[in-house]
């Protein structure tokens, strides 16, 4: 069955330090991978996506993510965290084929806390 796992409920990092938010997926075939951010009392905002090509994808607000097919992972990264990055982050995968290709499967979310 298709699934997305975000193993960390919460990630704490000091401002200026690099951050990583982990995501692994289980989807047959070639998945399409997405990261979204949710600020308090707001809807989800798209950050970046991997469809094909270069495994390192750059997105909004200085975020990037690395697709690793052998490890079925799509970790979100940023070289230098800002306090304003504190939010809830969701990884999502979309099955690339089959009857479920219209569906997004979301992880449970990781709360990122960036402290001054």
């Amino acid at each position, binding site marked *: 069955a298709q699934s997305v796992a975000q193993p960390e409920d919460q990630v704490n990092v000091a401002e200026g330090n690099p951050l990583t938010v982990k995501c692994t997926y289980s989807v047959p075939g070639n998945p399409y991978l997405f990261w*979204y951010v949710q600020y308090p009392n707001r*809807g*989800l905002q*798209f950050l970046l996506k991997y469809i094909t090509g270069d495994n390192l994808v750059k997105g909004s607000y200085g975020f990037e993510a690395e697709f690793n097919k052998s490890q079925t992972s799509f970790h979100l990264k940023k070289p230098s965290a800002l306090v304003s990055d504190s939010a809830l982050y969701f990884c999502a995968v979309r099955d690339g084929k089959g009857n479920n290709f*219209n*569906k*997004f499967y979301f992880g449970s979310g990781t709360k990122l806390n960036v402290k001054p």
Partner: protein
Amino acid sequence: GAGVSQSPSNKVTEKGKDVELRCDPISGHTALYWYRQRLGQGLEFLIYFQGNSAPDKSGLPSDRFSAERTGESVSTLTIQRTQQEDSAVYLCASSYSGSQYNEQFFGPGTRLTVL
């Protein structure tokens, strides 16, 4: 341009009442999704519309839940005989063409509280 809008932003209702939630997608977006997000949890897929195709209703939790969409515009999610476990934020999203390459754009959500 305008993003996805949802109304109302907040809805408080009594157990057993029916509620109707509205979503206005981005103009030209043919795909529309509804999700439920319980407090502190991830997104639960409810239903998906793509153009004139039959909607994918596989995520609806019970027959108390239904949704309609008029062409490629407004959608309404109806919950009949609401229960306390229906309390959640209901998020709507739309995307262009429904292609798997396209990301979803989300509305701000409707916070439903069932007393």
